[in-house]
């Protein structure tokens, strides 16, 4: 932090919290992003009766070097980062992936013409983590 303060611009920054933010967290930090699709886009709306729209969401962004408590990451994540930085760059850095999901109810027509209502586990990402 001292080094970064030495490089700090002479003019005092207007907004201190914004200024420090750039040192604390990566710009495009790992977080949950919205994505909404309709089954008609996949041409499945003839056999998926409901819901019409589905928002699976997704995780994207860089993982901070010290992922730690902020993402509920295990210590292994920081170890993996150290391996990547100090020992072997062939080992990938920790990735931004879903940590929790919520279910989805689907109403579909089966090939024999019967109709089924089903509740599926893990169909909508609700939280991200670094692993």
């Amino acid at each position, binding site marked *: 932090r001292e080094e970064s303060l030495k490089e700090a611009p002479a003019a005092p920054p207007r907004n201190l919290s914004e200024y420090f933010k750039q040192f604390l967290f990566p710009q495009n930090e790992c977080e949950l992003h919205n994505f909404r699709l309709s089954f008609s886009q996949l041409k499945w709306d003839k056999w998926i009766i409901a819901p019409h729209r589905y*928002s699976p969401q997704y995780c994207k962004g860089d993982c901070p070097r010290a992922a730690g408590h902020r993402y509920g990451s295990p210590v292994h994540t920081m170890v993996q980062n150290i391996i990547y930085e100090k020992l072997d760059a062939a080992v990938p850095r920790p990735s931004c992936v879903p940590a929790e999901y919520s279910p*989805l109810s689907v109403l579909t027509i089966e090939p024999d*013409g019967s*109709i*089924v209502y089903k*509740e599926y586990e893990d169909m909508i990402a609700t939280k991200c983590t670094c692993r």
Partner: protein
Amino acid sequence: PHSRDRAVSDKSSGFLAPPEDIPPRLDPLLRLPKGMRRGHALLPPLLKVLSDQGRQNWESQTPRLQPDSRALRYMKRLYKMSATKEGIPKANKSHLYNTVRLFTPCSECKHRHRELMKGDLHSVDLLFNLDRVTALEHLLKSVLLCSFDTSVPVPSAATCVCHLSIKEYDFSSQVCPSTSHSIAFSLHFEFRKRRWVEIDVTSFLQPLIATNRRNIHMAVNFTCLVGDPQQSTEQEGSLSVALVPPSLLLYLNDTSEQAYHRWSSLRHRRKTPARPRPRDTPLADLLHGQGKEHTQSTRAARRR
């Protein structure tokens, strides 16, 4: 990596046998055992789209019989009661099912129904094919869904007696089906208020579904008296209302991994308390070391 090698070697044991409707060139890890694939109605199309042949329109490759419009209307109403507009299951403690299947009588018998309908308007011969029910789906409740063709003028209320009988086909001796067991239900309902009449046949069908019967052949006979049984109504002849061939509704608990289990999500929430209780951490055990017998007994009690 190692796991992938293991999957490939399993292929020889047939565990990952390529099911018929998954393209052969899919990554072996994507081929799922039949039970798991059929149970998950979404998997085959998802896998097909992910495979390179999947670019064609999934719909054109799997022609589907069109469902009965009344049945579709009923299931859409069930969906609205069970899930939000975004498709999130409602946290409804009372409903333990995570799967509901609606079967309409199979088509070849339908035209027999038409013949029957010319004669006796009250009894229909039904054959349900339950092939889509997987071994991992356990029956919670089964309902016979009756609806009446009310395009003809109907009286306000009616008291009906419904006779159900299961027919056993003894294919060896080619005789006509014998009736293995039958049951009678007495129902009172008002036509104008009810588009559907639901008859709980769980105990009646349980033995058949528990023995993984794929085809259920039953005869349904309705005899209705016009008016309200409480008031003195002259007993009129049979009610001239056409009985639409009933559908069979199965409420099931799918025990496969992909299905949503309310109780496990409830249990999961209970299991991860807001903060670990201090005496649960190893340090706490050390601090309480002096009362070893005490700790051991509580630890044993906790383990029990």
